[in-house]
């Protein structure tokens, strides 16, 4: 049986960061469903926040101000100690990335350039044009080559093996061979990313099914604050490719069909650079009022920025627009609409990335520490992945070093493998049925129509019924492909039940939370209710059913106040 001290699942920024920080004396491996450079982190565009105070307009910036902006942006649902830790660590983190070779854009004089971003008091977003995620993933991957990190690519983790409240390893479905086998580990770190593809409209990669979060949930780890789903204000119409917030940071306008900069009506002082939840709602409102185009989109206008600035600062955006919709943003405004973008919620972990399951850690988008609370600020997700990936790698190393040397049980691993083989066998044995993608399409429609930017009791209750109906109908699912080698259908069927779990947990949390906070907007409860709801939602899986409970937010020096921009 393959065995490692630490197994990191996911080769995006959080996973690579954990791999690089894990103790060099330990036997560490990274498992990824795709080659690490294909991870969704590469799609991040605009930048990464740190109060370096490099920009002449940002010289009074401090990490404390960054923490305040993060906490206010979170609608006070972030744990303030965690947000402070992240913002404090941001500064040395950027320097470390720079020393590793990250090709950041520069200011005259040679300092790392910083641009304004939404909800931030100062220009503090460090960037490499609009390819920041891409260059950071490549930089960390390069350094992991240098350090000879062991990678297992195109392995899908299908389950966690648990015994006596301790994580023993994972069950693998090998995409290349279609084989199922266990991998033993003394500690497992999940860095499996988000679940965007539970929604019809999402900026996320096709691979973002979120099964990692679902696997943790099924293994008994609670999920936290899952009802907080970020909708990015500006995704390209109609295919929902991300149009970075940096487009507005660099001075882009949002225009409705009257040619008006409508943000004046919603966030008169921050305008286009209000936090994402506010801008996404504003756009959605304009479209529903008939102020959009084709009842689908509004415009992101960069034309006044001039060709030079667009080509220098936003080249990838321009390339995408030209290639995918045939317009040049230098001369034509970009059609945009909100789309699912990020999960504030995730696997419930503490400030070290540790969960309630001994030996099981999580970091990055799949985890919820929580630093983003009810709404994440742009530029804070890359930061989260690298800071908390690193912390999780160190914490898992400490955990493993503290274990005694006795052999670990292989029973749950062997059982898990046997069960999964039987499951796949049974799905293949059926000669007819319904293919997974039909169920997936039904689920996506429900989530996009009823658990979107604006929510109501009625919609959410209907969504919950719909999700449960899909689950019931799933008895008819079958695997049409007789060949499991590089078989995406098999991957989809293995992940789909986890996607149903996530949809159910998101919707249940949203239905229960009778208030409006950050990204969670209830038309029937449009006010924030700190008395009743300044608390984290926890949903645990008990006997296959979601059990909901709540946990206090760790407040600090910032008392909740009205969130005006």
């Amino acid at each position, binding site marked *: 049986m393959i065995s490692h001290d630490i197994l990191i699942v996911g080769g995006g920024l959080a996973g690579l960061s954990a791999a690089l920080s894990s103790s060099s004396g330990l036997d560490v491996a990274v498992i990824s469903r*795709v*080659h690490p*450079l*294909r*991870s*969704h982190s*590469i*799609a991040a565009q605009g930048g990464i926040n740190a109060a*370096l105070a490099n920009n002449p307009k940002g010289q009074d910036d401090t990490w404390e101000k960054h923490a305040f902006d993060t906490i206010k942006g979170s609608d006070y649902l972030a744990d303030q100690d965690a947000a402070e830790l992240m913002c404090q660590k941001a500064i040395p983190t*950027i*320097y470390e990335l720079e*020393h*590793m*070779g990250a*090709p*950041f*854009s*520069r*200011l*005259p*004089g*040679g*300092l*790392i*350039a910083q641009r304004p971003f939404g909800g931030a008091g100062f220009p503090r977003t460090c960037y*490499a*044009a609009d*390819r920041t995620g*891409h*260059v950071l993933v*490549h*930089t960390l991957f*390069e*350094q992991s*080559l*240098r350090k000879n990190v062991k990678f297992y690519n195109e392995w899908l983790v299908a389950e966690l093996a648990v015994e006596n409240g301790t994580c023993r390893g994972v069950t693998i479905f090998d995409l*290349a061979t279609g084989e199922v086998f266990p991998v033993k580990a003394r500690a497992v770190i999940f860095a499996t990313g988000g679940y965007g593809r539970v929604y019809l409209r999402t900026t996320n*990669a*096709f*691979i973002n099914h979120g099964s990692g979060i679902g696997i943790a949930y099924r293994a008994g780890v609670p999920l936290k604050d899952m009802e907080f789903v970020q909708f990015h204000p500006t995704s390209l119409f*109609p*295919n929902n*490719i*991300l149009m970075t917030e940096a487009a507005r940071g660099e001075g882009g306008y949002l225009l409705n069909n009257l040619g008006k900069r409508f943000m004046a009506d919603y966030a008169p002082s921050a305008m286009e650079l209000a936090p994402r939840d506010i801008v996404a709602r504003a756009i959605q409102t304009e479209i529903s009022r008939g102020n959009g185009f084709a009842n689908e989109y509004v415009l992101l206008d960069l034309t006044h920025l001039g060709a030079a600035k667009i080509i220098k600062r936003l080249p*990838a955006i321009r*390339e*995408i627009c030209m*290639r*995918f919709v045939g317009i040049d943003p230098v001369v034509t405004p970009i059609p945009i609409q909100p789309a699912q973008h990020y999960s504030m919620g995730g696997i419930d972990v503490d400030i070290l990335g540790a969960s309630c399951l001994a030996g099981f850690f999580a970091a990055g988008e799949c985890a919820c520490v929580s630093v983003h609370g009810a709404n994440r600020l742009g530029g804070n997700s890359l930061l989260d992945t690298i800071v908390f990936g690193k912390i999780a790698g160190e914490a898992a190393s400490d955990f493993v070093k503290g274990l005694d040397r006795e052999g670990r049980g292989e029973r749950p691993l062997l059982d898990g493998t046997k069960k999964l083989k039987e499951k796949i066998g049974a799905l293949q044995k059926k000669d007819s049925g319904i*293919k997974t*993608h039909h169920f997936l399409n039904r689920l996506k429609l429900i989530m996009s129509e009823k658990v979107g930017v604006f929510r109501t009791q009625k919609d959410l209750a209907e969504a919950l019924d719909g999700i449960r109906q899909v689950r019931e109908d799933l008895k008819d699912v079958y*695997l*049409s*492909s007789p*060949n499991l*080698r*590089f*078989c*995406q*259908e098999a991957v989809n069927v293995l992940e789909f039940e986890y996607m149903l779990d996530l949809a159910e947990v998101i919707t249940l949390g949203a239905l229960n939370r009778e208030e409006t906070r950050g990204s969670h907007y209830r038309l029937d409860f449009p006010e924030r209710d700190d008395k009743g709801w300044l608390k984290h939602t926890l949903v645990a899986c008990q006997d296959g059913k979601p059990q909901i409970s709540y946990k206090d937010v760790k407040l600090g020096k910032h008392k909740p106040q009205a969130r005006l921009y």
Partner: protein
Amino acid sequence: MKYTFKIFRFDPVQDGRPCFQDYPYESREKRTILEALMDIRNEQDATLSFRYSCREAVCGSCGMVINGRPELACRTMVDSLDSPFIILEPLPNMEIQKDLVVDMEPFWKALGDVHPYLIGEGKPPEKEHRIEDKEMVKIERFTNCILCACCYAACPVVTRDARYVGPIALAKLYRFVQDPRDARSFADWAKVNTETGIWGCDTIFACNEACPKDVQPGHGIEALRRKFVIERLKKMLRLRK
């Protein structure tokens, strides 16, 4: 618009020889080859294998030969090909694992062999290195590379000699030796002074043509050659003194 997708099919584990399989496909406007492939897989044939991830031409997963050209399936519009026949083949110069999926290990190994990472000086500065933007711009083209292997697949030298490291490995090496922060010695990187390194290139620049991100790896190879010759000359002149 109605199309016929002729897709290369081969599973080395169970098939004696490869074949092309026809799939009829009715495309809506602005449908990409990748979306079409997913539709065909979902609706017609779940055994069809291909790689993908980001669908926005930044992850480098979906390189394949589309009507004769190495391209990314995600950024190629079905209707841009001006043909009712869409022929899809795996990237050449690598072994076929299944259908459009190739074994990229030789590509990754060639890349790894040039040490494609920043080797900084012992103790880094307290803050960032001070580097003017114009220095970063010099390497920007190469940091834009998504390592999709289209250049490796298009390179006739790789076809002829599997030991040749290929275009992007050399261009990436140039990206690092040109980086003011990199401290590797000339002796270290001059290991590519071989027929399977910088002198392997035929300078026909099929790589530049094939690159979907305008990285132009061939120019990186030429720049690396120039840098090598100049460093060599400098060394000789120093010895003369």
